């Protein structure tokens, strides 16, 4: 600042620039103090900083070898990353998908052919589902082989099995939505399998299909399952799963 004040008359344009810069800095500073005002008040009540610091500094254990640490310790986290990808791509698909018997197939064709990058988002959602299930299986296998489900982590395992069932439910309900030959007949055969359950099988099949055959009601039900009911329940169990992992700590490596 001292330099610009000295040659005030000679460097008029420069001073203007300095002035603009100064004002911009002040604006940014004001904005930050505003955030600080809000954040500070929230932090006063809720201790964000302390909670965050505690979460961030929590140590992650090593396994016997570097390879094991990288491959075994990542499976659950990678499953979560894939769930996030499924949510993101799923919401994007939801913007264009129309869940009716007459329009579902057409809308999926539009997503693949006309919507910018629709083919990519749809491909990622379809492949993400398979990768997620592979990852969840491997995660479960790892927890089983290392005996990480043993006390005090019994309920973490139970919530994990529920999450596995939910993941399979996502796969089953999502498969019908493109409304092509494969999805229609795979769902017909799949729901037929439900009727093999003793006593309640037939009723259950009727309930899932919303009638004797797979039709509009089935599509509506599968759609509701896939985008509202299952995501809600999954969020709940994910929270429980994570809270228990945090609370009980990561199991000792073998």
């Amino acid at each position, binding site marked *: 600042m001292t330099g610009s004040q000295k040659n005030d008359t000679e460097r008029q344009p420069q001073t203007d620039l300095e002035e603009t810069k100064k004002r911009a800095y002040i604006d940014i500073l004001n904005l930050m103090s505003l955030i600080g005002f809000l954040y500070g008040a929230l932090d006063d009540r809720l201790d964000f900083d302390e909670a965050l610091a505690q979460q961030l500094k929590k140590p992650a254990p090593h396994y016997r070898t570097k390879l094991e640490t990288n491959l075994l310790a990542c499976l659950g986290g990678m499953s979560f990353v894939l769930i996030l990808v499924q949510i993101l791509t799923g919401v994007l698909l939801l913007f264009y998908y129309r869940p009716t018997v007459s329009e579902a197939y057409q809308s999926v064709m539009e997503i693949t052919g006309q919507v910018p990058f629709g083919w990519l988002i749809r*491909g990622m959602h*379809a492949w993400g589902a*398979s990768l997620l299930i592979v990852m969840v299986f491997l995660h479960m296998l790892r927890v089983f082989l290392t*005996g990480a489900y*043993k006390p005090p982590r019994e309920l973490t*395992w139970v919530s994990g*099995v529920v999450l596995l069932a939910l993941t399979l439910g996502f796969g089953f309900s999502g*498969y019908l939505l493109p409304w092509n030959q494969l999805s229609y*007949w795979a769902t017909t055969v799949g729901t037929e399998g439900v009727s093999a359950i003793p006593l309640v099988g037939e009723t259950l099949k009727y309930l899932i299909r919303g009638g004797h055959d797979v039709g509009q009601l089935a599509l509506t039900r599968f759609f509701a399952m896939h985008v509202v009911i299952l995501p809600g329940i999954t969020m709940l169990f994910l929270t429980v799963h994570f809270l228990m992992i945090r609370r009980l700590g990561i199991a000792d490596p073998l």
Partner: protein
Amino acid sequence: MEKEKTWKYGSEPFYPNHILKQLVLICILMALLVSLAAFFPPPYLPKADPYVTPEHIKPEWYFLAAYQFLKAADKLQFIGMWAPKIIGILAQGVIGLLLFFLPFIDRNPSVRPSERPYALRIGITLAILYIIFTAWGYFS
């Protein structure tokens, strides 16, 4: 407050060490996902037609094992007409319940592989059976 815990093979801070390593893995995972989506897009299939049954109906790969198991149970008809469906469903239900209640069934406190031979044998057998039935379903 939690006590400081010492780990057998050491540990690293969650942030930034562990997070950065995970980010590398996430990048690899995303690269794999985008490559699969780009090079192997979902196949083009005709619109659903309730009046035309395709020749080969197969579920998604992760349901193939269960599907194939039900089909294999069909061969148990010599026991009685009830046998295939009941046994096919019952066995899968039992496996599901076993999985759910595993921590309460397997009360062996040791986590060392040499001290839990039965649990590991049963678990690995089930995993291999799952793979075999999936492959059987895929190639039949």
